[in-house]
C-alpha cells in the first residue's frame, strides 16, 4: 500500500465514522452486507477498467455491456430454459468476444479507444433494448432461483460477490504488479513507442487488456442480473462505466496511462459505494446522489494533486538549503 492508498483508506474510515455517528444503522449487519455486495459487484468491473486505463485507454461501454449481457443471461435461463452453466458460458464468451473486438479495432485498425467504446456504449444499449423490445427481462420463477441461489447467497454473513471480488483482486494484483504482462501494461501506458521498440507486442498486450476488462464486466453483468432479479434494458447499468472510471481515478490512476494500482481502484470503489450509502442514510435527497459523488471526486483529486505539488516544492526547498547536490546542467 502506498501513501496515496493509505490516504484514501483514512478518508473511507473517517467518512464511515461520521456517518456512523449520525446514523448507527451504517454499521448494522444488514447495511454492511448490502454495501459489501455492491462493492463486490462494482469492484469487479472497476478492476477491469483499471487494466484498460493503465494502457492509456478507456472503456466506456461497460454499463451497456452489463445491460446487454444481463438481458441475455436472464432470457437464456428464464425464457429459453437453457441450463445456467451453459448460459453463463455463453455470456462470458460473448463478453470476451466484445473485448477482443474493441482491442482489435483499437490496435489493428488504429481507432481511438474513446470512439470505439463510445460506439459500444450506444450499440449494446440499443441492442439490449431491441432484443426485448424494451420490455423487462425477468425470471418466471419469481424471487426464487433454482440452482442459482449461490450468486446472491451469503456465506458467514458475507455476500458471495465479495469472495469473488477478493479472488479476482488477488489474481489481478499479481498480474498487474508482479507479472511480466503487468510490467508490459505499465510500460505501454508510459510510452507505447518505446515499449514497441523494445520488442514488446504492444498490440497483443493492449488487446488483452480490453479482453480482461470485458471478461470481468461480463462476470459482473451476471451478478448484477441476479442481484436485480430482472433486467430493465433501458436502465440496467446506466452510468456504470463512469463509476468504474471514477473509482480508478480516485484510486490514483492516471488517465494518461502508466499509473495505478489494484488496491487503489478497490479503495476507490469502496469510497464511492460509501458515498452512495451516505446519501441514503443521512436523508440527503437521493436526487443529489451524483452531485455528492462528483463533488467528492473533484475535491479528492484536487487535494491529492495540490498535496503532491506542495511536497515536491518542499523537497526542492529542503534540498536547496541543506544538502549539497551537484546540479547536472540540463541539455
Amino acid at each position, binding site marked *: 500500500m502506498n501513501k496515496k492508498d493509505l490516504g484514501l483508506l483514512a478518508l473511507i474510515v473517517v467518512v464511515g465514522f461520521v456517518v456512523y455517528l449520525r446514523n448507527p444503522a451504517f454499521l448494522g449487519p444488514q447495511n454492511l452486507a448490502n454495501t459489501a455486495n455492491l462493492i463486490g459487484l462494482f469492484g469487479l468491473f472497476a478492476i477491469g477498467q483499471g487494466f484498460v486505463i493503465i494502457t492509456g485507454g478507456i472503456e466506456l461501454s461497460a454499463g451497456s455491456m452489463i445491460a446487454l449481457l444481463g438481458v441475455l443471461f436472464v432470457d437464456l435461463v428464464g425464457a429459453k430454459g437453457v441450463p445456467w452453466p451453459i448460459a453463463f458460458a455463453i455470456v462470458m464468451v460473448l463478453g470476451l468476444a466484445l473485448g477482443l473486438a474493441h482491442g482489435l479495432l483499437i490496435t489493428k485498425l488504429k481507432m481511438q479507444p474513446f470512439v470505439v467504446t463510445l460506439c459500444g456504449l450506444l450499440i449494446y444499449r440499443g441492442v439490449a433494448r431491441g432484443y426485448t423490445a424494451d420490455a423487462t427481462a425477468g425470471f418466471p420463477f419469481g424471487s426464487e432461483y433454482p440452482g442459482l441461489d449461490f450468486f446472491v447467497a451469503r456465506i458467514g454473513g458475507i455476500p458471495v460477490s465479495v469472495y469473488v471480488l477478493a479472488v479476482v483482486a488477488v489474481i489481478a494484483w*499479481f498480474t498487474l504488479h*508482479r*507479472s*511480466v*504482462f503487468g*510490467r*508490459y501494461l505499465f*510500460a505501454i501506458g*508510459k*510510452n507505447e*513507442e*518505446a*515499449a*514497441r*521498440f*523494445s*520488442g*514488446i*507486442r504492444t*498490440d497483443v498486450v493492449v488487446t488483452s487488456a480490453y479482453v480482461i476488462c470485458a471478461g470481468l464486466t461480463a462476470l459482473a453483468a451476471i451478478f448484477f442480473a441476479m442481484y436485480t432479479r430482472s433486467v430493465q434494458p433501458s436502465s440496467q447499468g446506466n452510468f456504470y462505466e463512469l463509476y468504474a472510471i471514477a473509482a480508478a481515478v480516485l484510486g490514483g490512476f492516471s488517465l494518461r496511462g*502508466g499509473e495505478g494500482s489494484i488496491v487503489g481502484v478497490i479503495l476507490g470503489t469502496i469510497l464511492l459505494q460509501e458515498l452512495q450509502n451516505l446519501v441514503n442514510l443521512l436523508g440527503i435527497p437521493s436526487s443529489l446522489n451524483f452531485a455528492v459523488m462528483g463533488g467528492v471526486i473533484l475535491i479528492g483529486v484536487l487535494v491529492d494533486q495540490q498535496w503532491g505539488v506542495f511536497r515536491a516544492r518542499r523537497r526542492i526547498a529542503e*534540498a*536547496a538549503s541543506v*544538502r*549539497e*547536490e*551537484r*546540479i*547536472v*546542467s*540540463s*541539455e
Partner: protein
Amino acid sequence: MLDSRDQEAPARPFLKLSAVRKTYPGVVALAGFDMLVGPGEVIGLVGENGAGKSTLMKILGGVTAPDSGTIEIDGAPYAGLSVGGSMKAGIAFVHQELNLFDNLDVAANVYIGREPRRGGVLNLVDEKQMRADVLPYLKRLGANFAPNTPVAKLSLAQQQMVEIAKALSVNARLVILDEPTSSLPLAETDKLLEVIAGLKAEGIAVIFISHRLHEIERASDRVLVLRDGVLVGELAKAEIDHDRMVKLMIGRDLKVAYAAPKLGKGEVVLAARGIRTAAYPTRDVGLELHAGEILGLAGLVGSGRTELARVLFGVDPLYAGTVTLNGEPVTLRNASDAVERGIFLVPEDRKGEGILLDLPISENISLPDLDAYARSGLVVPALERVQAEQSRAELGIKAPTVTTRTGSLSGGNQQKVVLAKWLAMQPKVLIFDEPTRGIDVGAKAEIYRLMRGLADAGVAVLMISSDMEEVIGVSDRIAVMHEGRISGLLGRAEFSEENVLRLAVGKPLRQAG
C-alpha cells in the same frame, strides 16, 4: 537608455559580460565569466555538457540571475535580466527543440501572442496584414516558402528560419542559436550557415552553440571554449581548429580515432535485397552487413536511411524484398520478430523510442527480455538489479543507483542504457540511428569504443549518421543513400567528406587523378 540603435559606434560591443558568477548548491556553474560580443559578430560557444553553457544561456535569457558580475547591453548595465527585459534588450533565442505550433502557418507563428488586430467587436486577427508583415523578414533570410505555409510542411531548417524570422521581427540584435544543427541534414546545415552569414551582414550578432565542431569552425568569427564554468580558451578566426577546440573542451586530446577491426571482415550476417520502404515504394535498396564490421550509412535526412533501419527492425512493413540472417530468410512482422532473432535498433529518438524515462534503469534494461528475469510469469526484481549492476559496470553508466529514474540521467548515459538492454541479449546485428546526437564529446568517444568492442565480438554493426566526422572516423565501410537507393559504397581508402557528400546528393565520384 537603449536608444543608440542608429548611432555609429562600431567600437562599442553589443553585449559585455564582466566577472559573471553563478553558483548552485555544491557546484560553481560559472566562475567569473567575461565575454564581449560586437555587433555583427558570430561567436561560437563550445563546451561539454555541464561546462556552463546552459547557465550562461539562462542568464542571458533572463531565466536566472547571476550571483555577481555585470551584464552590459548596448552600454546599459544590468545586475540581472528578466525574461521580458532580455527580449526588450534585443536578445532572441532559437532553441534546439523548436517552439513552433505546427498546426499554424508561418505568419501566425512569427506573430503568436502579438497578432495584428482588425478592431471592432470581435477584434479578429488581421491575417492579411500579418502575412504582409512577415514577408520582408522571410525575404531577408532568403526563405523559399510563403507566409501562409503551414509549419508542419516545412523542413527542420525552414522551421528554424521561422524562429529566426521571429527574432528579426522583434528587432533582435543578438540571436542565440542553441544546437541548431544537431538535427539538420547536411544540405540544410549549409542553408542555416548562410542565414547566419546574412544576419552578420545586417549587423546582428550571433552566438552559435553546437557540439558539431566543423560547423562552429565554418561559421564563427571567434570561438569561446567553456569548461567547468571557466572560460578556458578564446580562439580568433585564424586559430579556430577542430583539434584545438576539443583539447580545450576536455582538457586533453581526443579524436574520433579510427580503430581498425580486430577480426577483419567476417561472414555476411544480414543481407537485405530489393527492399522497398514506404518512403520510396518504387526504389529498391539493399545492403550486406558483415560480422565484425561497422558499416556507416550516410545520406541526407529523407534519403530513406531511417526507413530502411525501421524495416530491418520490423517496425515498418516490408513492401518488397528479402532479408536474410546468416543465410536464412527471415520474416520481420514486428520488432518482437527482430528482437527474437538478435536484430536490435538503437533508435534516433532516444526519449520517444529508446527508453522509458519514468522507469528505473534496471527496468529499462530488462524490458526486452523480461521473461528471462521472471519465475513462473512473475518478475523477480533482484535478477533485474543484478543484470543492471553488471551493465552499469561494463558500460560505465553514471548513475547513483540502478533504480534511479532513467529520465534523470544525461543524454550519454541514457544512450548507454538503451545499449545496455540490447547488450544483455547477445546481439547479432545492432543498428544505430544517429547514436551520438546531443551527446557530449567525452560520452561520444565511449559510445564509439563500445561500438567497436561489439564489432570485435563478432556483431554486425550498422551506423546511420549525419555527422560527417563520425561517419568517417568510425566506419569500416560507408554506404551512402540518395533518394531511396544506395548511391555508392566507399572503402576506407576512398573516405573523404567530399566523396560522401557527392554520393549523398546523387553525384558521381570524381575520378582520382
